[in-house]
């Protein structure tokens, strides 16, 4: 979106560095003079919040790693030691555990924002797919990290999730054994999960860099969904406008994060994870962390192992096809009366699946989970393609300025 760099090095050192590595102009163009549409609302602060959370998780994670022991007879006790003996250990661990929840909360809001305003559409398909990749890596990291405290939920989550791969025909069992490093979840599993839990976040950092790069090539979408036509009139520089707005968003987000961490640190956790892992006893009711519940509900809704596992993975991967499943030329839901309703139904379906994922898989719960799982896939495979064809969109403004003058664009 930007033309030639407007950055002029001021000091002698900056001029010297610029000629050798133009990093100062790169940073200036990306985070200072970078033009952002002037009608962005507060739903656009989650990119900054997610960046903040990624750094927060890495920083708290690295310090926790200094006290944690990835060995089955010591892991649980080392976490208890962090809680009791390590200076500030309680806060550090609670900040990391609740940080995962806050990270997922932000990413879900970020994803729904993209869905509502059609941010995945031409020319932002690659940006969107990179986002899906980041989301999947986040899920992997969250799962790997949950195993490390070696409580009952850790152990049985590891068992259930690695056994998902045993559903693969012919090679499934061999793959599961390879993942576990044995015939059941044991020390080799814990040890490698720890190594991978440390590694994957840095892969996320790399993909986030690509995500931001792709964003800065196409420019941001905006609530009107109309592309920027006049950079001078319709955009404002990233700093101070977006920087300050993001700071307000992060501050508000931190209030919730701090409340969870300091006042109800175990609210989102499962009490069974304070029981040390026992390979011979399965807890009566296994529940994943809240951010996996909708997908878990889909897995359990299908009374066939291979199909259930396929549906679980398909429910995540299908979002990557969104740019091609949504046939409407209009980006923003602001001008799409039918899609706007369908969007909120879809949000309700996702929340409903989340609720059902936490209930026992029996009776009426199971039937509701089946109906909602079917609707989840219908939304992507049938409803979205059809709505795009039959819906009569409201008149789309010619430009961002026109949208603002019409008073349509929400300034949340």
């Amino acid at each position, binding site marked *: 979106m930007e033309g030639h760099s407007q950055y002029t090095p001021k000091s002698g050192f900056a001029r010297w560095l610029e000629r050798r590595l133009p990093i100062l102009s790169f940073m200036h163009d990306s985070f200072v003079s970078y033009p952002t549409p002037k009608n962005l609302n507060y739903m656009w602060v989650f990119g900054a919040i997610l960046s903040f959370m990624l750094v927060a998780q890495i920083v708290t994670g690295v310090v926790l790693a200094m006290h944690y022991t990835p060995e089955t007879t010591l892991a649980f006790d080392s976490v208890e030691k962090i809680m009791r003996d390590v200076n500030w250990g309680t806060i550090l661990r609670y900040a990391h555990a609740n940080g995962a929840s806050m990270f997922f909360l932000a990413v879900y809001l970020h994803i729904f924002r993209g869905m509502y305003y059609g941010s995945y559409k031409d020319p932002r398909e690659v940006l969107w797919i990179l986002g899906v990749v980041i989301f999947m890596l986040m899920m992997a990291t969250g799962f790997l990290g949950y195993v490390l405290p070696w409580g009952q939920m850790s152990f*049985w989550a590891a068992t259930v999730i690695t056994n998902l791969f045993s559903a693969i025909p012919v090679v499934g069992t061999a793959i599961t054994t390879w993942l576990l490093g044995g015939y059941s979840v044991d020390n080799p599993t814990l040890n490698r999960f720890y190594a991978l839990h440390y590694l994957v976040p840095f892969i996320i950092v790399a993909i986030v860099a690509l995500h931001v790069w792709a964003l800065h090539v196409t420019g941001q979408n905006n609530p009107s969904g109309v592309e920027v036509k006049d950079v001078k009139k319709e955009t404002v520089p990233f700093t101070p406008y977006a920087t300050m707005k993001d700071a307000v968003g992060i501050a508000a987000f931190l209030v919730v994060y701090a409340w969870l961490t300091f006042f109800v640190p175990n609210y989102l956790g499962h009490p069974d994870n304070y029981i040390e892992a026992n390979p011979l006893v399965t807890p009566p009711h296994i529940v994943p962390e809240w951010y996996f519940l909708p997908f878990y509900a889909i897995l359990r809704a299908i009374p066939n192992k291979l199909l259930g596992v396929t549906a679980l993975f398909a429910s995540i991967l299908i979002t990557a096809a969104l740019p091609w499943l949504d046939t409407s030329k209009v980006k923003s839901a602001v001008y799409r009366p039918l899609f706007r309703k369908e969007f909120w139904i879809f949000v309700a379906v996702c929340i409903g699946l989340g609720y059902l994922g936490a209930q026992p898989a029996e009776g009426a719960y199971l039937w509701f989970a089946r109906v909602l799982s079917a609707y989840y896939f219908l939304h992507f495979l049938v409803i979205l393609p059809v709505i795009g064809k039959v819906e009569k969109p409201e008149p789309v403004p010619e430009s961002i300025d026109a949208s603002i003058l019409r008073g349509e664009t929400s300034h949340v």
Partner: protein
Amino acid sequence: MTSKDTAAKPAEPSRRDILYIATGAAAAGAAAGMVWPLIAQMNPDASILALASTEVDLSSVPEGQIVTVKWRGKPVFVRHRTPAEIKAAEDTPLSVLPDPEADSKRVQKPEWLVIIGVCTHLGCIPTGKEGEYNGWFCPCHGSVYDLSGRIRSGPAPTNLEVPPYAFIAESKIKIG
């Protein structure tokens, strides 16, 4: 050879082409050979393979009881079945089983049922003497197994696995 000839028919592979392909293939083979240890290191190591057998003394298991022993890190259920339980397992028609297998194929002596106590769905441990058939019930996703450890209802695809074992004495078995 003129350019016209080249366009008319594909050129004969030259000595250099063959060298290119052979070198490329050798490099690809070497790369695969170097990657293999990085992948194979994740498979069970020698110490895990070495723990692959367990002996169980059956004389301490009274009729009607189930004992759980650990084999390869997994629980193995050894169930001393009562005559009524044996009869119920043997009389079940194969047509009602999702994974049909006769009870006689799953035991060496009818009174002793030896099965791996890992649900074939997603690996939880089923609880004994529960469920519709008083066999096993998996609390995770509701699979029900009968008195022969065969799947009867729920998401599990197959029967509870029978581990390799042998009677090394009248009342002693070696699993694995």
